[in-house]
């Protein structure tokens, strides 16, 4: 049982800089939770507080039902995988993995058994007698995982473990770590700044910025129902388009005006949100690039000027300007437009999101 509960956890550094404000989160047993956000958002600090490498300035942290605030790292029953692996360079892979068990005064035969078991499951048996220097990046990463696994911790903490690997290896390790989580049946807390990693691996994603949690939800929910413009822009690639629009009409039939074109807002969206309360005001209209289309139809569409076309192979990202707003459309096949070409753009209004112009929150 390794539920992690963080209650109003705060981190204030000696120079009175607040890295994490009022962090409250309940991580369920066996859950794979991802902390994601741009650099300096406090995600690593939070992880290090869970590990016990940073002191918790205020608030409470429980693992299981035990208060952890004052406990040293070794008594928290956790294992951590570091961004730069942090393997002991003067020890062989075997010794690296044995170190924690030796510290626990485990008998030698048992240590050997454990290491062989873990090494087999990670396919690193042939590396056991090598030193970290003689390993490739991917192998080091595997050893670092192995070192964490031998101890059977109830919580795994991973601090950007894939960011030092090349793109191909990263994709492969992503799947392996996910598989590992399934096999080990323990709680994983994973820090990354890469939204692709977050989307593909996590059961639940915690999006952070400037020390605050902006939203904590499943990947699908974050993608479809972001709480504010930051989350909407951070999750998804290429990022969501944000266009200023004016809300017109009445409670029954809401319309929005972008540039000089008027679009009807589907009734389902009017019912589920509060867009009708904003009639007469300017709000932010958010729409994902895959729901933004080029059209030959001059009715119900906006003129846009092409800035640049990125050819992705199977599709193209068309960067355009509508007034002063940048808009990207994901075109399902190759599209090679020139800069300055004028095209007509329309949207799938069923996928429209609206955000407040004042604070960026979802309407």
């Amino acid at each position, binding site marked *: 049982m390794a539920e992690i509960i963080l209650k109003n956890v705060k981190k204030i550094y000696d120079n009175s800089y607040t890295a994490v404000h009022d962090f409250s989160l309940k991580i369920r047993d066996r859950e794979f939770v991802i902390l994601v956000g741009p650099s300096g958002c406090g995600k690593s600090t939070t992880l290090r507080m869970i590990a016990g490498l940073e002191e918790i300035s205020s608030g409470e942290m429980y693992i299981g039902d035990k208060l952890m605030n004052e406990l040293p790292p070794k008594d928290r029953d956790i294992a951590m995988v570091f961004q*730069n692996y942090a*393997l002991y360079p*003067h020890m062989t892979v075997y010794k690296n993995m044995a170190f924690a068990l030796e510290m626990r005064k485990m008998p030698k035969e048992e240590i050997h058994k454990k290491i062989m078991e873990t090494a087999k499951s990670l396919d690193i048996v042939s590396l056991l007698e090598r*030193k970290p220097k003689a390993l490739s990046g991917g192998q080091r990463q595997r050893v670092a995982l192995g070192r964490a696994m031998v101890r059977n911790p109830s919580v795994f903490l991973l601090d950007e473990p894939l960011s030092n690997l090349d793109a191909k290896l990263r994709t492969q390790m992503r799947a392996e770590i996910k598989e590992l989580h399934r096999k080990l049946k323990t709680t994983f807390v994973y820090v990354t700044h890469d939204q692709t990693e977050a989307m593909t691996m996590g059961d639940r994603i915690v999006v952070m910025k400037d020390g605050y949690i902006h939203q904590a939800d499943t990947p699908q929910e974050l993608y479809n129902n972001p709480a504010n413009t930051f989350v909407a822009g951070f999750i998804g690639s290429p990022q969501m388009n944000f266009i200023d629009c004016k809300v017109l009409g009445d409670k029954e039939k809401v319309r929005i005006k972008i540039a000089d074109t008027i679009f009807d807002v589907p009734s389902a969206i009017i019912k589920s949100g509060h867009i009708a309360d904003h009639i007469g005001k300017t709000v932010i209209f958010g729409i994902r690039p895959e729901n933004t289309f080029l059209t030959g139809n001059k009715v119900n569409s906006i003129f846009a000027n092409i800035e640049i076309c990125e050819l992705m192979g199977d599709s193209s990202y068309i960067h355009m300007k509508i007034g002063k707003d940048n808009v990207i459309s994901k075109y399902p096949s190759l599209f090679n437009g020139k800069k300055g070409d004028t095209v007509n753009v329309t949207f799938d209004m069923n996928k429209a999101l609206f955000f407040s112009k004042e604070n960026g929150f979802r309407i």
Partner: protein
Amino acid sequence: MRKMSTVRKTTNIFVYVFLSVLALIWVLPILWVILTSFREESGSFTPYFLPQGYTLKNYINLLTDNSTFDFPRWFMNTLFVSVVTCIISTFFVLSVSYTMSRLRFRLRKPLMNIALILGMFPGFMSMIAVYYVLKSFGIEQSLLALILVYSAGTGLGFYVAKGFFDTVPRALDEAAMIDGASRGTIFWKITLPMSKPIIIYTLLTSFTAPWIDYIFASVIMGDNYENYTVALGLFKMLEKEFIHNYYTQFAAGAVIVSIPIAILFISTQKFYVGGVTGGSVKG
């Protein structure tokens, strides 16, 4: 391309000639001392470079004739003091520098500044005070006093070693902490095994310092010939009444004194490689 390589070649030739001349200038005094130590004719000054006769007598007399100068005893004194000082001060330097590098405490910055400023004053400024302190303990003119004086303040010289420890990734400490190691275990089992170059460097410097010191030894020992170190003893040979007869023995002594240091340097040279941190963290 060809022009480049000719330019490079001429520069190289110039550099090599220049370095050879410098090397010759540096080697000459050493060569001269060695030659003098084997010189048959006595006297401090000769108008020629190569001795007229060669003999081992200087060495034999130096090591066996203890009637005036007890060189073997002084040698053992110095060796004893240096070895003990070396062990104590290496321990001091490494622990202070590790502390300064890894632990965060309120007085860390002030202490480091004080150490820096203290280091700017020459050590022998405190000579008289140190002598009276030792006298009040009743241990002046003893080897213990020398060991105390040589090793007590070495902790202040932590800057180089601290610089080294700073380059050992903190993530390793943290990984070990999570693995269940205490601060002490981390120091002994993780940090030290990776710090061979700096340990060797510290050992060498803390051995050489007492080995070659003259000033403190002369103040502390005064006229207690029994406890003289080689530096004091050899210098004694250069006094007016001895210099003519003992000059070549002095040279022999100088050669013998340099042997342990030479051995130390040569035998530890191989540890002066870039360290063993490779592969621990990415980079």
